[in-house]
């Protein structure tokens, strides 16, 4: 499986080159990659459907326990077949859809990369690996949604979907790490067997919540559903692929995958059923008022995803089977309808509104046929697979009145949308301005295969149930579940409900304009919706970011120094308190008059420097401080230091005088309050430093190192001036660094004064 993924990613990388070499055949050529995967999966199907998953693993990052581990069981098989199969069709479709588009190569690259990532999600047997692919799908979908990047709406929608799904991804990551920690393994196959231990662990609820947030954002569950309709800014092939049949189902896949480990508790079923049912109904309701083709489809996708989560949440063996069946049915009809919608828009020169479409049956008979097949399947009309799935679903939820009512309401909306997209554009009178052609050959394979598939699966529902749905449901349930599907199950209450739903749906379809007007009236309410919350949150965050940055990064150096110094004082003070003061005996030498006098001189000179109003005075008093230092050095047996300090101080004064000669007198004063604050800070620093020095004096300095110098300077280093020997020999490396600093400081000062922007360059 690693090989398959590598092939797909390689295909993605090569896509622009393939497109450059064969501009008209790129999609077809690239479709070879998913077709190979599809064929391989088909070959593995017999084994997998009998409960023998294919497993492989290779080490990747051993230090983290990350392995390239894959596992193909019934659930993965169902998803992988859809991803590779529909992927191939979408690539073919893209070739026609983006004919002569300059950036077709890039689109093919990204969508192929997406396909590979999605395959990775459903095949991964390692939590981290799964997460890696999961994030990759978010990222590639960002690029796909923003494909029409010169439109601001597309960029915003791309950003929105990215932020929402990645935010969820972060929750998911935390959840997965905790899950692995509790289970003691990263491998899914290992975790799934530990359901009981996991469910009783103290971290169960946090894990559940974190994982669910991740899955809900990805699968557009309420209240995170808003990004999906906005994501319709993506080109239609991407919408058909990502936003109907694959990526948005990743969340459902994940929850289903983890069902044996996390499912079956009260919390699980309450959370999933509630969120799923809300999403199901809200999506259906919101779909009613739409008139843009893709948005109609998008909202019903939201609704369908909700239904899947709801069925998963109920969690009986029957609902799990129903869910698996519904996933299959939905993938077929929804992808087909998206492709049809794309075809219509493409061939009518950009018309997207159902209300503006009509009478296209003559111009686009082929499209009409495909659309009708898929639309009827969506509506749940017999004899389509949508009907079979719906029957199965109704059977699974039994007699629960609330669920039945919800299903009927939702089902009616599906009828409306199915007919609106599958029927409405083709019948009736053609508006005069509307001109259309049939879609080109290259775009036909997708709608045809998927549309006919919706019909064919219904007649082959027995084998399909046996080979695909059963194994998938078994994997979700964690036990073997036989599935027997029938197109005709005889007269039973389910059939009656189903038919009633159809009637209701047709009624709704007839009353479609009514919904549109109602939606128009309710539009202001959208401002209270989660989409607005998202925008508000983003704006608030950015405002806060701006505020804190203005507060901190004021641009005024003095503020920076103040904050830095205050932090230092606070931290040293905290450490002092933490240490509980100073302990031990101070080693102090007796007072000496001359040193005392020099100290007083230094303090006085320092204050003169601080208070000086003129440059010259401050330079001079700084010089006095320096000369006093030299005196101190002399008193303490440091003639080298004293000499150096003396010369350096003189030279410093000369340099300062040379430089400040050009600067004006001090004219920028500060208000008294500011000066007081600064003085307080300065006193704090002075106190802190004093305390530090005093504290250091409480420790007896070991003299091993300096004794070594004193003892060996003459014998080993041939010098009697120990300080000089240290400088040029014992610690010569310091000196090497030091003269380097000097040399570059000189070069720097020189360059700074001589090199001016825009002037000549004579060094």
């Amino acid at each position, binding site marked *: 499986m690693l090989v398959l993924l590598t092939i797909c990613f390689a295909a993605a990388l090569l896509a622009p080159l393939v497109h450059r070499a064969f501009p008209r055949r790129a999609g077809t050529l690239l479709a070879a990659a998913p077709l190979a995967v599809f064929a391989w999966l088909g070959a593995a199907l017999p084994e997998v459907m009998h409960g023998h998953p294919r497993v492989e693993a290779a080490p990747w990052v051993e230090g983290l326990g990350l392995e390239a581990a894959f596992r193909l069981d019934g659930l993965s098989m169902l998803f992988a077949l859809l991803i590779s199969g529909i992927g191939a069709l979408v690539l073919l479709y893209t070739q026609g859809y983006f004919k002569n588009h300059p950036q077709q190569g890039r689109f093919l690259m990204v969508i192929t990369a997406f396909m590979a990532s999605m395959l990775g999600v459903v095949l991964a047997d390692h939590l981290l690996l799964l997460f890696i692919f999961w994030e990759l799908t978010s990222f590639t979908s960002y690029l796909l949604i923003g494909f029409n990047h010169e439109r601001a709406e597309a960029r915003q929608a791309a950003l929105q979907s990215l*932020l929402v799904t990645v935010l969820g991804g972060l929750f998911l990551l935390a959840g997965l790490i905790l899950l692995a920690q509790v289970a003691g393994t990263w491998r899914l196959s290992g975790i799934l067997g530990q359901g009981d231990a996991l469910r009783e662990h103290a971290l169960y609820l946090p894990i559940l919540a974190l994982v669910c947030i991740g899955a809900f954002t990805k699968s557009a569950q309420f209240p995170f559903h808003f990004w999906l309709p906005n994501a319709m800014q993506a080109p239609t092939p991407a919408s058909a692929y990502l936003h109907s049949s694959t990526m948005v189902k990743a969340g459902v896949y994940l929850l289903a995958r983890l069902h044996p480990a996390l499912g079956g508790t009260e919390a699980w079923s309450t959370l999933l059923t509630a969120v799923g049912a809300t999403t199901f109904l809200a999506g259906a309701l919101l779909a009613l008022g739409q008139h843009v083709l893709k948005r109609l489809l998008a909202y019903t996708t939201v609704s369908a995803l909700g239904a899947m989560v709801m069925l998963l949440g109920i969690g009986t063996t029957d609902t799990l089977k129903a869910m698996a069946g519904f996933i299959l049915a939905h993938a077929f009809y929804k992808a087909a309808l998206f492709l049809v919608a794309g075809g219509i828009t493409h061939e009518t020169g950009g018309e997207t509104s159902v209300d503006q479409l009509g009478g296209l049956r003559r111009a686009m008979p082929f499209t009409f046929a495909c659309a009708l097949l898929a639309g009827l399947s969506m509506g749940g009309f017999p004899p389509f697979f949508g009907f079979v799935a719906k029957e199965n679903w109704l059977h699974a939820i039994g007699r629960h009145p609330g669920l039945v009512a919800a299903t009927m309401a939702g089902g009616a909306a599906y009828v409306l949308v199915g007919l609106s997209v599958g029927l409405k554009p083709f019948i009736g009178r053609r508006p005069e301005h509307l001109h259309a052609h049939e879609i080109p050959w290259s775009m036909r394979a997708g709608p045809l295969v998927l549309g006919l598939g919706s019909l064919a699966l219904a007649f082959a529902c027995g084998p399909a149930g046996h080979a695909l749905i059963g194994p998938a449901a078994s994997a979700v349930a964690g036990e073997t579940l036989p599935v027997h599907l029938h197109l005709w199950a005889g007269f039973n209450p389910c059939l009656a409900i189903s038919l009633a739903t159809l009637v209701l749906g047709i009624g709704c379809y007839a009353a479609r304009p009514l919904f549109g007007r109602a939606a128009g009236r309710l539009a202001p309410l959208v401002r209270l919706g989660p989409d607005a919350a998202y925008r508000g949150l983003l704006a608030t965050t950015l405002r806060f970011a701006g505020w804190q940055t203005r507060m901190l990064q004021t641009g005024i150096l003095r503020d920076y120094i103040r*904050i830095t110094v205050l932090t230092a004082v606070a931290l040293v003070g905290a450490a002092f308190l933490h240490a509980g003061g100073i302990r031990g005996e101070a080693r102090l030498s007796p007072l000496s008059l001359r040193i005392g006098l020099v100290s007083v001189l230094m303090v006085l000179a320092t204050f003169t420097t601080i208070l000086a109003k003129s440059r010259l005075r401050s330079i001079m008093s700084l010089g006095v401080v320096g000369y006093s230092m030299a005196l101190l050095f002399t008193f303490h047996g440091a003639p080298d230091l004293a000499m150096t300090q003396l010369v350096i101080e003189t030279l410093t004064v000369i340099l300062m005088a040379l430089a400040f000669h050009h600067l004006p007198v001090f004219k920028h004063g500060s208000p008294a309050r500011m000066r007081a604050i600064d003085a307080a800070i300065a006193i704090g620093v002075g106190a802190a430093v004093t305390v530090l020095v005093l504290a250091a004096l409480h420790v007896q300095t070991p003299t091993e190192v300096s004794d070594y110098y004193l003892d060996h300077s003459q014998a080993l280093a041939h010098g009697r001036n120990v300080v000089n020997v240290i400088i040029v020999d014992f610690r010569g490396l310091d000196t090497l660094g030091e003269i380097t600093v000097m040399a570059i400081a000189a070069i720097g000062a020189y360059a700074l004064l001589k090199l001016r922007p825009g002037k000549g*360059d004579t060094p």
Partner: protein
Amino acid sequence: MTLLPALPILLPLAGAIACMLLRRHGALQRGLNILFSVLILGAAVALLAAARDGSILVLQAGGWPAPFGISLVVDLLSAIMLVLGGLMAVAVSVYAWFDMDEGRMRFGFAPLFLIMLMGVNGAFVAGDLFNLYVWFEVLLTASFILLALGGERPQLEGSIKYVALNLLSSAMFLAGVGILYGMAGTLNMAQLAVAIGQGGQGGLVTMVAVMFMMGFGIKAGMFPLFFWLPASYPTPPAAVSAIFSGLLTKVGVYALIRVFTLVFCGDTAFTHLLILAGAGLTMLSGVLGAASQHEIRRILSFHIVSQIGYMVMGLGLFTALALAGTVFYLIHHIVVKTNLFLVAGAIHRLKGSYDLDELGGLYRERPYLSILFMVPAMSLAGVPPLSGFFAKLVLILAGLRAGAWVVVSVALVVSLLTLYSMTKIWANAFWAPAPEPAASDRSGMDRATWRRFLLPMAALAALTVCFGLFAGPVFGLAQDAAAQLMDPAGYIRAVLGGQ
């Protein structure tokens, strides 16, 4: 081993001397700059090869035994940092070959660049605290001048803040060194570790530790000490920003790691908690700063701050895994950040601006440049399977294992905001149409030159991808380095020799 550990210091010095003597020959200096960068990289690789098996290389300068002379010590962390420094030096010197103007070249860009590397490398190998101070001064002085070289007004303003705050940091560092010497009578870090490990000074050690935390924290750009960074990094030429962004703050982080794993690890409940808190605030504050900016290099500069938080977080958690995460993060970040600044420079070269409002249309016009931006940008944001993802993953993993919920939550939120700012640059400069369609190319380069100009960026981007795809060996290296750090006894034994 009589010379090798000193080569990362001596080679740049030799190169700088050569460049200073040839200061009238701009072209020659450009070549020498690259040549010596390659040599430095070679020496670093040799050191890494020698240290890979876990042995610690020690050079006692002048042949004086430790702790009396100055020890140069190369453990795995040092070797890794040296190699990264060498790599960045090569990439940036090649970039500068194309981009640095003749005036700056003749007034010492090349020698200053090399001397800065000398200081950086010296800091990485110093086994002596005062020697570390000297190397800090070397790299700081060189960076002061590189920052101001050219004398444009923003450069000068940025330099003043940079100089003042970094000198303040040096004063704190120096005070810490003085007090530490007063307590322990030695400057050799290994012996300091022994002396302080024997205890007896208690609280004073913690106070000194805080002094070092401040000194290095300023240099690393931690909250709330990072002001100088966003004020100055966006001002000099692109090559200078790039090498700064890659290496300078990282020397601060390296120094923090060194002293807080070797010398100050007696009171971790206080010091390392402080570091951890600082890490969280640094991440958050930096990323918020970035989110509020509208100029590429400012965004990137604030992101340096934010990323420093991640690196320091590993040190604050102070477990083997967390330190491995820090090391991995360093490896990742140095490559990616340098690359982003180089790409920003290329954009500026092309469009004459760093301002997102004035940029646009690059995705349509320059697909290769787009990829070269996208790869490091997404790596920085932590998109798998690039290096940044693993770097963040390890730290988050370590944080969760250590039960540090708060800082892990912050790290997660910050990574989302990082993604936000990277997509902001992407959406505005690359995706959005150019505000004025006329100005297309100001680079003054023909196609072939432009391709060569992009070469260092492509190499660094490839490196990022490799660090992600082959994260196994890289992380293995980081783990070994972390294991060495967690066991200071090995370091002490290697330096002091079996005492």
